[in-house]
């Protein structure tokens, strides 16, 4: 058993990486989303609307997820790696959001 593990270190976790064509499409999608973000920045009516910030956050989150899933191969890799990344990321995001709500509500932001 030990020999099997040594000879085939991760037979259950063997994964395939995306192909060159998939990488090309991922790069194209990332470029298009970035262009859309910048384009949205230059539309005053959109910037003034309540949709601007959520729209940018969604586009940014999409880019973030695409890079992590395809370029960092988290979609294809072992679930432990997913856990090691998403665990701290969740804590970090929760802390960020909690801090913003806490300091905005208490007025502690008005320092100088």
């Amino acid at each position, binding site marked *: 058993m030990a020999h099997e593990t040594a000879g085939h*270190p*991760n037979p259950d976790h063997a994964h395939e990486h995306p192909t*060159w064509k998939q990488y090309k499409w991922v790069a194209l999608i990332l470029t298009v989303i970035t262009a859309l973000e910048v384009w949205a920045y230059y539309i005053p009516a959109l*910037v003034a609307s309540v949709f601007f910030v959520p729209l940018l956050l969604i586009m940014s989150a999409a880019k973030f997820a695409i*890079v992590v899933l395809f370029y960092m191969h988290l979609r294809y890799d072992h679930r432990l*790696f997913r856990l090691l990344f998403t665990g*701290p990321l969740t804590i*970090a995001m929760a802390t960020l959001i909690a801090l913003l709500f806490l300091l905005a509500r208490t007025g502690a932001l008005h320092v100088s």
Partner: protein
Amino acid sequence: MAHAETQTASHHFTTTGLDNRKVAIWMFIGSECMLFASLISTYLIYKGKSVVGPFPHEAWTNPATGQAFPPILDIPVTSVSTFVLLMSSLAMVLALAAVENRGKPVPPGLSGKILSSSKLWLFMTCLMGATFLGFQAYEFTSFVHEGLTIRTNLFGSSFFTLTGFHGAHVTAGVIWLGTLLAIDMKRGLQPKDAVWVDIAALYWHFVDVVWIAIFTLVYLIQ
């Protein structure tokens, strides 16, 4: 059994069957998430709280001197540098694929030769990383010339700290990839070395995703 243990030790596999270097880099990236979340939190908490300008998105006139300051962020320039960093991630995955597939048959023609050249893609990644740093140096220099330093206001302090930390990470990544390129030039990276390229690639892509967040939260959201 002893042979198996020796092999296991030489390949650095954990009891999970996973390479411990990959486990380590993912743990490191997890801790880096915390670091950058704290820096981004600080920036967002101080956003719009500066008493004196220059400001990121609004013009400001100094009441004491009457000097006018335009909005300081240069979105077109930063958009280009963002694009360069995104494309460096593409070059990085191609470098990793070239190392992993070394020795296997390559598609005929020039495109096959180009795609299988790890040296080319590592060099391109380094070059684009260095270009991004050049853009950042230009941005920092122009900000200082326009009157914004790390001590000017809350925006300056939090902005230079956040983007400076990110720039330091990019610098470390360029040096790391430069050493891999030097090894590749000297003896050629083989499929057995792929995990070393893989962990460098994971670090590089992480630096990229951090910039994706910074670009939206700092530069685009007003």
